[in-house]
């Protein structure tokens, strides 16, 4: 490549992934755009994930990139970075910062890399990184909508007529009576938890689940899919 920036293009479950090598950001930006311009027919309509390594990128840079890409009919939807600053910037712009769990082979490679890493660099095993989630600290009334590719936690009720869509899990600390869609990017392992699980409609991945009139006493419950079957488990502190 003339600009000397190394770009690796992969197909992932959510679209295309471009892993960016070393280089100054302006050079990288023009390399990406040149690359896409040269293969416009291939990229048109694509959903793009960009892996930028540990680069620190600010909102203006990511915003420009997103706009330039959308000029070309390419949707930028995720930024993968090991820099917390870049991750935060991406989240502010509404971009995802995680994609689906890497395939087993990749995971194996990652583990190998982990093992090769000197012990001093390895974080303590008890420090968990956790996943990204957004917190909504209010009751969602009819007509309100929250959507995120991460997990969503609502501290309040979700009333009928409100919608919550998450790429991951949905947890409602309150009454859930509206429409929820967990694992909207196709994640069948997503779960929905609520203190009162009485949704108008509930979806996990591509499966639409309508719960018949709830019986019995109202209690906190978790709903998940197991082998395509809907499983609702009460949360019983005595059993834990």
């Amino acid at each position, binding site marked *: 490549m003339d600009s000397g920036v190394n770009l690796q293009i992969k197909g992932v479950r959510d679209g295309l992934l471009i892993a960016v090598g070393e280089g100054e950001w302006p050079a990288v930006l023009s390399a990406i755009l040149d690359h896409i311009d040269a293969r416009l027919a291939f990229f048109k309509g694509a959903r793009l994930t960009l892996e930028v390594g540990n680069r620190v990128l600010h909102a203006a840079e990511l915003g420009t990139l997103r706009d330039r890409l959308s000029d070309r009919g390419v949707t930028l939807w995720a930024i993968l970075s090991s820099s917390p600053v870049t991750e935060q910037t991406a989240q502010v712009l509404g971009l995802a910062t995680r994609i689906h769990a890497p395939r087993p082979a990749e995971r194996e490679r990652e583990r190998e890399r982990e093992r090769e890493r000197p012990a001093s660099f390895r974080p303590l095993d008890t420090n968990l990184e956790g996943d990204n989630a957004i917190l909504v600290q209010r*009751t*969602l*009334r*009819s*007509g*309100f909508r929250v959507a995120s590719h991460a997990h969503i936690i609502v501290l309040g*009720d979700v*009333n*009928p*007529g409100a919608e919550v869509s998450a790429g991951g899990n949905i947890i409602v600390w309150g009454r859930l009576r509206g429409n929820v869609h967990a694992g909207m990017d196709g994640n069948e392992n997503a779960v929905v938890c609520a203190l009162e699980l009485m949704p108008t409609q509930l979806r996990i991945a591509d499966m639409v689940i309508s719960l018949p009139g709830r019986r019995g006493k109202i209690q906190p419950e978790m709903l998940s899919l197991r082998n395509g079957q809907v499983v609702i488990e009460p949360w019983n502190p005595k059993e834990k």
Partner: protein
Amino acid sequence: MAAHVVTISSGKGGVGKTTTTANIAVALAMGGQKVACIDADIGLRNLDLILGLENRIVYDLVDVVEGRCRIRQAMIRDKRLPELYLIPSAQTRDKSAVSPSDMVRLCDELRQEVDWILIDSPAGIERGFRNAMAPADMVVVVTNPEVSAVRDADRVIGLVEAEEKGPARLVLNRLNPVMVKRGDMLAPDDVLELLAVELIGIVPEDDTVVVSTNRGQPVAMDAKSRAGQAFQNIARRLKGEQVPFMDLDEKKGVLGWLSRIARAGGD
């Protein structure tokens, strides 16, 4: 004097916004307050009918906003009560004739003159609703004990919260205690559980409301009507008084109903 601007809204149509506005206004005016009602439902003018002031309209809200008259000229004084005024809406125009900032300006001018400004919002959540909401210090949401009205009330309450107009207050209109007792109608507790706002009044379903509406004689003027009493209580709660909720139990409901039939037949 600095008036309280109260907007009465509901989202859904036909739940009794205009009736509630007229009756709260009458009840406040009967209590010696100086009250101005503004009908913000441009194109579907109704408040003048319910107050029985239709034949006295010369200038309307749009005339004031477009500078064809002074605000004083558009204020129709109700002759039955010392200090009740109506600014009617225009019938031949639509919601786009007025902007939210026009409403704010108009209310600011009016604030010095009266104790209460009640704005009757149109149904829906579009332009007319925005106009009615813009000058509000407080929003009263009217709903009926039925799922569609409650759903729309929830939407409006959400919009009121988003506009930071303070927590909305709720009036539950046309409650039928007999049906609630039978389990055929949403009970006040069911409605409140969902909406989670302060309840300032429950108005029982009452035939006298229809009669009084048709006559242009708001039911709050009728001391014997239970709905009228309920509106009187709402007005007192708006003024900050602690008023216990009316006893709506079945026996009284039936007796009241019988006496209403007797009265309607006697007229």
